[in-house]
């Protein structure tokens, strides 16, 4: 029996517009917060490069704390890619994994699982940067 046709008829169509709008606006707001922090740090006399690092670190801290308070998952469900794509998503994936495996202890639980979700991002980043770096160094003069 051909189930595929009937299943296709009833499958939920994603709410492209609503999801897209939420992601766009929430992602934009995260950027605004980041920019405010960046300018604040520069005003406090921190050098430009360091201010950038500190801003990212601050955003990571906020995302991790929101995860700790049990609030981030609800925000993420609403904001969709708006929170998953910025570094907030990265921070949450690590903190959530760490929190989840707490009961299995510091080593086998927390430490062992910290990179469970974030590992792929780092691996893909390093592998692609390495290949591209070598190509650029050898063929484009560095």
């Amino acid at each position: 029996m051909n189930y595929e046709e009937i299943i296709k008829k009833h499958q939920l169509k994603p709410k492209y517009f609503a999801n897209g709008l939420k992601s766009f606006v929430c992602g934009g707001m995260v950027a605004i917060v980041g920019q405010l922090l960046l300018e604040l740090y520069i005003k406090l006399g921190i050098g430009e490069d360091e201010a950038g690092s500190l801003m990212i670190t601050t955003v990571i801290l906020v995302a991790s704390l929101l995860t700790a308070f049990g609030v981030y998952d609800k925000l993420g469900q609403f904001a969709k890619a708006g929170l998953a794509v910025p570094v907030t998503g990265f921070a949450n994936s690590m903190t959530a994994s760490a929190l989840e495996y707490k009961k299995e202890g510091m080593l086998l639980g927390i430490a062992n699982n910290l990179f469970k979700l974030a590992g792929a991002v780092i691996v893909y980043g390093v592998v692609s940067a390495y290949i591209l770096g070598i190509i650029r160094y050898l063929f484009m003069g560095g």
Partner: protein
Amino acid sequence: MKIGNNSLKFNGVYIKDSSTAVGPLESAGPLKDYFDYRFPDLYCNADSWEKAEINLVKTCIDDLIKKTNLSDTEIDFIVGGDLNNQDAVTNYAVRDYNIPLLGVYSACATSAEAMIVASSLVDSANAKNIIVTSSSHNATAERQYRNPTEYGGARPDSATFTVTGAGTCLITNQKSDIKIESATIGRVLDAKQKDANDMGSAMAPAASQTIKVHLEDLGRSAEYYDLILTGDLSSVGKPILIDILKEQEIDIEHNHNDCGLLIYDRKKQNVFAGGSGAGCSSAVTFGYIMSMLRENKLKKVLLVATGALMNPIMIFQKESIPAIAHAVSLEKI
């Protein structure tokens, strides 16, 4: 006794009593008054998610033993399962009782599978009293099948929400007002659905197959039953099931419902397409449906518990999700 292709007809198999325990979301849902124990917190007075689920199961079994006034030696076996790897929760919950255990698993169809095994043992006079248990917990399911519970990645609207709950009942050869009169054992059906966030689509074909086979094997039409109750097809799977059966000239549009749609109020509670889990069908059946049968609001119910036999590793290997549905027919006498 085997009847037809895949079904069994039982003689003298009854449900004496039941006990159910649920978590916070279910305690606030539309069926809240039909559960025996309502835990206000996901940790259920325990230290970890797994221990919380163990607590749910033990609370029910303790309560059931008290209600039925039977001793350890008078209960022949426990048959049950849960969603955790190796049926861990059931194994650990039962270790404090001196009763032999048969652990079973068919994902969210576990409750029906356990009932079928238990009923067969009682029907064949190999046992007099058997405890059936089936449980699930939202957090243990999330961390095992999907992501850490505090993870912020959004789930789509077609996803289902694992019920935190345990349902137990005592199946016996002693006459009572609720009879288990027949059952149909499902065949694994792979409808080639690969989306782990849409179990309803994966399971509806299996449910339709089991319902069709059951009605054929027992020579009944869909109207024989006041209620054909699927386990957790959710709002996505329900219309698919109705359509598939309509194409085969079986109309269940007016007497179908789904445990996953009954246990939550989807408008007020954030549960996506509905509830799911091994505890979903058991808590709803042994809590709500049994009350409805006792109060004569329902007389003949066909429980069709549906299981998506999903394994994360196979999903990563780009396999599809096979499903199974087991049916148990309950009658008020």
